[in-house]
């Protein structure tokens, strides 16, 4: 048996295991499901202490779990910090999944929305930003005034949704492949505008992006030194958005998206106003990206245009496709893997991009539907494989 066959065999067994787990899950009664979900939530919130539980002033190490941490060596990254990034990337993947996985629109400029979210909290919330300075002069506000962090949330979400609509309005009438290049251009335009405009401080970036409010014991709760509150905030926001998208996915809107993805003409004929729903998908996806960008900017406290390179858009799309486009669990797993693995294998830093490239190709050739595919999507792909032209 050669290596490819062996890989395929392992993958088949993994898939069988996943399917039996999913069957078992669907047979569970409501009470058990609730218990499992609660246990899962507790586990997620206890992750910062994974494998190193501080009980009574002593750290108890659990060997297998402890090795999963990224900070077992001195040069490793802080584990709660990695978890924070995992959760904001999960948020991004879930948002992009609305656009790519559910509505079937190829968006290669998603980093643009992430950047708009980040810049809206920076421009309105940081006392040193030119926009805040202008507002102060305009309305004669006191020195040091800036928009409160909480008030930046609606601003960020509104701005990203509006930009989603502005991008979508002229471009969503285009066919899929054209959409790819136009959205890619959008992502670049946002970065170039941020780099060259005086209202974003151009290349110098913006300092003093505010953290969320709250104090504990006289110290600010969200300070740069302690990543654990940040992780709790990010994971809570992520869970809330996941639940919201889940509700949306199972509603009329979600069914409309699926119909558009599978056959836009048929959907239009049966009375789904496809343009409007595509626009909604864009706006909602954009809002999630914006929320994630906002958390990112607050955590870093400083942003500059180079934080929003085109490579990130590609990374985000890879998360969705590798995980299993259309399936929320899949895209979350994809996001976690692509954030966690590079951190875990930091000693091999130089080899990581190469390994990432090889992994993309191998996963796509072996499992085009992603690691944890949505069942509907993988049936679609099976149909396509049957329709494959004879001698291609």
């Amino acid at each position, binding site marked *: 048996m050669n290596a490819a066959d062996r890989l395929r065999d392992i993958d088949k067994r993994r898939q069988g295991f996943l399917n039996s787990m999913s069957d078992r899950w669907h047979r569970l009664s409501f009470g058990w499901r609730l218990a499992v979900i609660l246990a899962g939530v507790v586990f997620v919130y206890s992750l910062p202490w994974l494998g190193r539980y501080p009980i009574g002033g002593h750290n108890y190490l659990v060997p297998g779990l402890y090795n999963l941490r990224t900070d077992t060596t001195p040069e490793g990254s802080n584990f709660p910090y990695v978890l924070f990034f995992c959760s904001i990337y999960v948020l991004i993947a879930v948002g992009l999944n609305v656009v*790519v996985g559910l509505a079937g629109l*190829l968006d290669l400029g998603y980093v643009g929305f992430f950047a708009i979210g980040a810049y809206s909290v920076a421009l309105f919330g940081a006392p040193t930003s030119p926009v805040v300075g202008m507002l102060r002069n305009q309305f004669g506000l006191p020195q040091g005034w800036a928009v409160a962090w909480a008030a930046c949330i609606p601003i960020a979400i509104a701005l990203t949704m509006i930009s989603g609509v502005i991008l979508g309005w*002229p*471009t969503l*009438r*285009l*066919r*899929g*492949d*054209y959409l*790819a*290049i*136009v959205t*890619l*251009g*959008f992502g*670049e*335009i946002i970065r*170039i*505008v941020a*780099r*060259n405009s005086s209202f974003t401080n151009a290349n110098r970036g913006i300092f003093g992006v505010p953290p969320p409010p709250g104090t504990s014991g006289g110290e600010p709760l969200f300070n740069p030194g302690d990543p654990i509150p940040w992780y709790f905030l990010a994971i809570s926001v992520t869970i809330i958005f996941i639940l919201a998208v889940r509700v949306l996915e199972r509603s009329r809107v979600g069914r409309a998206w699926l119909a558009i993805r599978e056959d836009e003409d048929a959907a239009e004929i049966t009375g789904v106003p496809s343009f409007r729903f595509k626009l909604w998908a864009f706006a909602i996806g954009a809002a999630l990206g914006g929320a994630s960008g906002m958390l990112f900017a607050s955590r870093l406290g400083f942003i500059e245009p180079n934080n929003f390179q085109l490579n990130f858009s*590609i990374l985000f*799309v*890879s998360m969705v*496709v*590798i995980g299993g*486009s259309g399936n929320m669990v899949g895209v979350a797993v994809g996001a976690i893997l692509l954030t966690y693995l590079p951190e875990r294998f930091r000693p091999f830093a*130089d*080899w990581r*991009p*190469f390994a*990432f*490239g*090889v*992994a*993309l*190709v191998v996963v*796509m*050739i072996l499992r*085009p539907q992603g690691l944890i595919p949505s069942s509907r999507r993988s049936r679609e*792909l099976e149909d*396509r*494989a049957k*329709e*494959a*032209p*004879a*001698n*291609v």
Partner: protein
Amino acid sequence: MNIDALIDHIGQHTVNGLFKGSIYALVALGYTLVYGVLKLINFAHSEVFMVGTFAVLGVWSFMGATDGPTLPSALMFIVVGLLIAAAAAGGTALLVERIAYRPLRRKNAPSLVFLITAIGVSLVLQEIFGFVLAKFFGRPFGRLVVGMPNIVVSDPVIRLPGVDITNKHLIVFAAAVLMMIGLDQFINRTRYGRGVRAVAQSPDTAALMGVNQDRVIMLIFVLGGIMAGVASLLWSVSFAVTKFDIGFVIGLKAFTAAVLGGIGNLRGALLGGLVLGVVEAYSSSLFNSNWEDVTAFVVLVVVLMFRPTGLLGESLGRARA
């Protein structure tokens, strides 16, 4: 806005734009050929160009090229560089098709899967030149910019009022137009070209009529690779630098050019490339060079709004149908 600067030097900007646009157009041909037949955006094509520039660098340093050689030896460097670059780029394109795309085509995978695979392939190629080879051989591989010998010394051969046309401009423009005409004739007049057009129109019918699709698909990848190889030689002659990620920006521009002209349409790729080059040249004088990418994309969006299939429409299949 600096309209005077643009008006005063409009001729020179046009020439510079056409010069850069010719290179975009040659690379755009690779995107357009593959898209026309397979309806697939071959994002790895930009790396084919990069491999071409490294092939040129390799053969030039093997032959001991130096700055400003005599005319006969410069000609020899160009011809040998052309052959090697075309072979290396064509070979890379073929390899990418065989290793990465063919298994996916057998499964009739959706375009998103091809896209991610293409991104993976281009990452692998970039890393091979930017890291893996550097690990074993050191320079010229690695993350830094590599200089090449300056084979053609820039020299204004034609002086019009306000416009200097250098020998580099002439070489690049003439070569691009020649390659375009050659490819156009190949696709429209030869037996192989007829096969390409047949598969582009309808893969199933073409298969029934006895066209070997696999061979046609290999042919278009090789043709696209050769065009990228020529482009990489012209790039090396004009700018004399390369880098492991040089393909990225050029690929992005070339793909924009292909879409602008109407992807899948060979003449569209030429037109799109030239238009894009000129638009960029104008905008960098009108605003400044930081904004040229923004202008390029805005022009693309505006064109697509009014002509959703690009300036000339998609017509590889429909040409002379």
